């Protein structure tokens, strides 16, 4: 539809709705065709009448992109000025761009929450395009990504949709290591500039190499466009079908099927596609250069499918790991791709130069500086011209030699402006600048130059610069400003070559020029020697081949061959269960792996959690891939949702059925619901231990039926066990007393099991003290292993958002809403009263996130009703949050509500996370409370004197005041306080103690009051009647 026809349609009441729906595709088409004025006619008109957050977000994003396409940030600057007056893209309203991206990311989250994967992917991709628009990153101004603390991509990378994009896909077993002649498929997206040396090296190493150019005649148009790839990454069925079809096309199917290793050069759409289609048996290696770090595609690649990532410079590694959260060290430490820094091999003729080598330079070379490959904004030739100006102030004989293809006419206005400025300066310089076109014989051309200058804003490696140095030019490298914070040119070249300003560059050049010819020649030979030694093919290729076609299988080296100590960990609630206990269990298993243990986790069928709090697959990403998980086919019968399978009695009298069922449950073990699992758990765990003897059995109740498992396995196999009791059993954590007596059936079970335990761990000192008093003979075996916040999630919990009193504050609660309805009502009443009293609070909101009720009652219990009733007072419920989305959720709030059940025995896990955000925290719980011990000293803690409506009301008002007045220093101090509660810091001492005792380091060392020491599993005699 032409734009004018659309404008007529939108004015007509009868066709307006349809026209508004057609606006985004129309604008996208016009933008693709380069008809921006027409597109700009449509967008503002559509925005005027558009309704619905989806449409508004999409149009807002398109408006931002159109503005970025057209805007020249240097508009207004004097175009005739010779000096560099432009501030580049910095002049653009970057805050508006980030807001547009944030709106799109929010729309993506909303779409994803209701299962609209395609819409979510579209919004997310558009948000990434807004933030990574080339006008912001490829011109002569500093890229927003060049500063470590800019948080430029946070609006997108902290969204739930982005997190979902980078959930780790289940790993598939790799086939055996390739045979004598590995088959390598080299995939490119058209740019094979750096592949020649790689291909020669691979062939030389005996590999069978095939190239697949996805823009070549064989496969042109085969790879779906990025929008489809993004949809496929979020699981849209139609997009997945399109991707599947592309992989089964006859042109590529056989190549993919036969390859042992697929290498994708440049992280473009080809890499995204490859991460979706490369068969599970093949290795996938992606090589990133420089420009991709500033592009969208690295954010779309399924990095969990990539085996190795090759980056060509250490500064680039630092940048990419900072910009792409999926490659952050915290993520790749546990699984994910291996990241290597291997420079581009530079093809150099002849032997490495030594001090006697002389380069045949022409007479003018002593006053000539070369720039090789200069005609792009990112190479910043204006900087080189400034160096020339500095030099000519000292000696007008200095010349600049520009080698490489001429400057093409750019597409964008800012790039055109920059080109015009460069050409004007070159023209004004007259004979002082000489341009030489592209040449195949660089050393011959460089006989005219004694020096080579790297003036780029950023480089991955600088191959052309290295070639020039190898040809005898003395090197001067700018400290590439876009990557300076990440190590800059100093990561690639010796520090003596690197300069920071045109003046410094000129000073180095003048100093070199002042040296005698012999000294200069020797210096040039030394520099060429450095290039040969570091970047010559002979030096680099073995390292690259080791990555591309490794000699042995890495997995074989990892397994440890059974010499590592073995922990069997009975952890019902282990990830991916969306339970609060999963975080502690995950951290415990990981810590044992870190200490060299093989860990086997025994848990229940993951789909059983669908019946309770559901699954959080993002948690699996955080489990060390070396942890083996054994799932026993158990699930809660009382939560079975299939009504057709119910008996008449259960359907007609559900409450009576539950009561009867609970009584029957306790026959095998005195615990309702889980008692019937006893036999299956015992047999399943015993089978695991028999399969591979364990050095230690760790059980983590609840369910307390696992205590019976510990005792059973010890009796049958002699395996020592430890109980990670967490909240205890006989202690009533909510009622602050004894849950059952010592002579009851439960009491007898508890004593029996704890007596045989090597150690007992609890989550806080009051619970530990309870057990020490209850079982004085076990006192020395009771340890405290606190909970904490998880710092290895790859996302920082620190909240960057700053409150806006005009818009009101956002209060939040994150965690299972397990308060009594009366307690929650009190909180809500206090909130309502505070809103009536305080002007800012009257505009504020209180959001509950987390589980409210489980199973059938998810979001539908008494607490849900309390929240629903308070909707008119700005109280909302936003549903559960995946662990990987936790940072994004906190990032939307200004203050936190810490409403906890129980008293001095309840610490809760959320208090640690709350503190790590650095936000003000309002306590809404009984005093004294175990959380107090943790919060004591937290500078932004608001502690009402009691749990009454009036006290809490004042607490809300005070919290709002603290949120508005807190300075950056206050927040930093708050986070500092939280730092010591990082989870691994809390758990590690206990894990270290267990490692010391049972990790085959010194079996003789045991506590004196513990049970009889157990020998290492493989040397332990089998108890009578036990077959091993």
């Amino acid at each position, binding site marked *: 539809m032409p734009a004018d026809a659309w404008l007529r349609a939108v004015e007509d009441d009868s066709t307006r709705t349809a026209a508004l729906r057609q606006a985004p595709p129309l604008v996208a088409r016009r933008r693709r065709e380069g008809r921006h004025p027409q597109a700009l006619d449509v967008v503002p008109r559509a925005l005027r009448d558009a309704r619905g957050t989806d449409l508004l977000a999409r149009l807002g994003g398109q408006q931002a992109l159109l503005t970025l396409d057209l805007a020249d940030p240097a508009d207004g600057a004097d175009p005739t000025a010779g000096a560099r007056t432009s501030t580049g893209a910095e002049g653009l309203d970057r805050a508006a761009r980030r807001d547009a991206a944030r709106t799109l990311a929010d729309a993506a989250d909303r779409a994803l929450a209701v*299962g609209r994967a395609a819409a979510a992917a579209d919004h997310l991709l558009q948000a990434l395009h807004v933030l990574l628009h080339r006008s912001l990153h490829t011109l002569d101004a500093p890229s927003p990504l060049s500063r470590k603390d800019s948080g430029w991509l946070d609006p997108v990378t902290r969204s739930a949709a982005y997190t979902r994009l980078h959930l780790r896909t289940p790993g598939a077993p790799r086939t055996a290591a390739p045979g004598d002649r590995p088959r390598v498929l080299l995939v490119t997206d058209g740019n094979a500039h750096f592949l020649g040396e790689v291909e020669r090296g691979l062939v030389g190493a005996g590999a069978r190499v095939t190239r697949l150019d996805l823009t070549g005649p064989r496969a042109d148009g085969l790879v779906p466009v990025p929008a489809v790839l993004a949809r496929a990454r979020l699981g849209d069925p139609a997009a997945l079908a399109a991707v599947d079809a592309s992989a089964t096309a006859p042109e590529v199917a056989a190549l993919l099927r036969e390859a042992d290793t697929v290498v994708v050069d440049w992280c473009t759409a080809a890499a995204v596609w490859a991460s979706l289609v490369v068969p599970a048996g093949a290795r996938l290696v992606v090589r990133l250069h420089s420009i991709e770090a500033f592009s969208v595609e690295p954010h779309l690649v399924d990095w969990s499918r990539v085996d190795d990532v090759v980056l060509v410079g250490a500064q680039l590694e630092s940048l990419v790991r900072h910009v792409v959260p999926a490659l952050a060290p915290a993520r790749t430490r546990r699984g994910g791709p291996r990241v290597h820094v291997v420079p581009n091999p530079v093809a150099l003729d002849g032997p490495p130069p030594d001090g006697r080598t002389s380069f045949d330079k022409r007479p003018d070379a002593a006053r000539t500086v070369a720039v090789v490959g200069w005609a792009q904004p990112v190479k910043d030739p204006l900087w080189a011209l400034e160096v020339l100006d500095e030099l000519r102030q000292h000696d007008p004989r200095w010349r600049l030699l520009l080698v490489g293809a001429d400057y093409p006419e750019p597409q964008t206005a800012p790039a055109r402006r920059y080109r015009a400025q460069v050409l004007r300066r070159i023209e004004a310089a007259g004979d002082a600048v000489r341009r030489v076109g592209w040449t195949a014989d660089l050393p011959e051309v460089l006989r005219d130059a004694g020096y080579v200058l790297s003036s780029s804003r950023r480089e991955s490696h600088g191959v052309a610069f290295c070639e020039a140095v190898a040809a005898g030019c003395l090197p001067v490298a700018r400290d590439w400003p876009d990557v300076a914070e990440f190590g800059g040119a100093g990561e690639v070249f010796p520090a003596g070559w690197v300069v920071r300003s045109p003046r410094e560059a000129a000073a180095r050049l003048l100093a070199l020029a002042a040296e005698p010819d012999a000294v200069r020649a020797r210096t040039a030979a030394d520099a060429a020697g450095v290039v040969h030694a570091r970047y010559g093919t002979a030096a680099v290729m073995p390292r690259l081949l080791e990555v591309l076609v490794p000699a042995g299988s890495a997995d074989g080296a990892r397994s440890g061959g059974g010499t590592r100590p073995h922990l069997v960990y009975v952890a019902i609630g282990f990830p991916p269960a969306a339970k609060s206990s999963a975080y502690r269990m995950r951290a415990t298993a990981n810590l044992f792996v870190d200490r060299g243990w093989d860990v086997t986790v025994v848990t229940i069928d993951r789909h059983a959690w*669908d019946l309770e709090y*559901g699954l959080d697959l993002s948690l699996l990403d955080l489990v060390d891939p070396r942890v083996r998980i054994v799932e026993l086919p158990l699930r809660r019968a009382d939560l079975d949702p*299939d009504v*057709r399978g119910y008996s008449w009695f259960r359907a007609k009298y559900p*409450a009576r059925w539950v009561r009867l069922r609970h009584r029957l449950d306790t026959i095998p073990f005195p615990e309702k619901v889980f008692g019937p699992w006893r036999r299956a758990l015992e047999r399943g765990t015993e089978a695991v231990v028999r399969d591979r003897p364990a050095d230690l059995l760790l059980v983590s109740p609840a369910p307390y039926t696992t205590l019976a498992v510990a005792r059973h396995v010890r009796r049958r196999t002699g395996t020592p066990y430890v109980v990670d009791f967490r909240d205890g059993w006989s202690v009533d954590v909510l009622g602050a007393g004894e849950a059952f007596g010592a002579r009851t059936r439960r009491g007898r079970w508890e004593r029996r099991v704890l007596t045989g335990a090597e150690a007992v761990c609890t989550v806080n000192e009051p619970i530990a003290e309870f057990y020490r008093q209850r079982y004085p003979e076990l006192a020395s075996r009771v340890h405290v292993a606190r909970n904490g916040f998880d710092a290895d999630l790859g996302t920082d919990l620190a909240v960057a958002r700053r409150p806006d009193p005009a818009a009101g504050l956002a209060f939040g609660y994150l965690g299972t809403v397990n308060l009594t309805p009366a307690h929650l009502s009190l909180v809500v009443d206090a909130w309502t009263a505070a809103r009536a009293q305080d002007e800012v609070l009257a505009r504020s909101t209180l959001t509950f996130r987390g589980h409210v009720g489980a*199973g*059938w009652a*998810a979001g*539908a219990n008494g607490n849900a009703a309390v929240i629903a009733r308070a909707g008119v007072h700005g109280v909302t419920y936003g549903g559960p949050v995946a662990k990987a989305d936790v940072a994004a959720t906190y990032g939307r709030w200004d203050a936190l509500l810490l409403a906890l059940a129980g008293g001095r025995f309840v610490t809760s896990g959320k208090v640690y996370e709350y503190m790590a955000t650095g936000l003000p925290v309002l306590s809404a719980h009984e005093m004294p409370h175990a959380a107090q011990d943790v919060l004591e000293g937290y500078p932004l803690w608001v502690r009402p004197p009691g749990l009454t409506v009036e006290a809490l009301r004042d607490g809300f008002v005070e919290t709002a005041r603290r949120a508005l007045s807190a300075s950056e220093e206050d927040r930093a101090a708050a986070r500092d306080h939280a730092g010591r509660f990082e989870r691994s810091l809390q758990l590690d001492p206990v894990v270290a103690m267990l490692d010391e005792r049972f990790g085959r380091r010194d079996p003789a060392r045991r506590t004196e009051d513990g049970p009889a020491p157990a020998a290492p599993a493989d040397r332990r005699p089998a108890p009578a009647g036990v077959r091993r």
Partner: protein
Amino acid sequence: MSPDAAPRPLRVVLVGVVVPTRTALEIPVAALVARGAEVLALLHTLPEARVLTGLGLHGHRRLVLTRSSRAAATRSPVRRAVDAVSYRVLRLLDRRSSAAVRAFRAARRDPQTRAILRDADVLVALDRVAVYPVWRLARVGRTPAFYGIPAALRHLDDAAPARRHGAQERRTTGHAAGQGVSG
């Protein structure tokens, strides 16, 4: 229906006896709708209008005992008399019955509700009391029936691949049963 016609949407019927809250319905119903389902609610006790407004429900109906509208429209005095008597008898029975049984009787007696249920692909009990009427109703049509919307969502996700290869024609013909119905 031509072989190329798009499959009809799955019909999910929510049955509630206890008054539902908006919080309990908002996100799950949106998720059902996002999966392309047609969602109708049969509620024994209707909540305030604002609870149901804007949820994305394709209709709702109240599950209470009423006089038959067909009998009222008929000229046959016998049929009217039978309806009056049966209505009175059921009223008397209801006095001694639980809410669950009353909801089931109301569903079985109301022709429009029966039409909705005939076309239902999934039945969902929203609360514990609604399990009994759903259990009874599911036995009649062998319809998949679940306790809670989360289980129904999982069922839809599991059933989705199979449905893409062709859905069955709706059984009811004539005036669209349950479309835009109200209590």
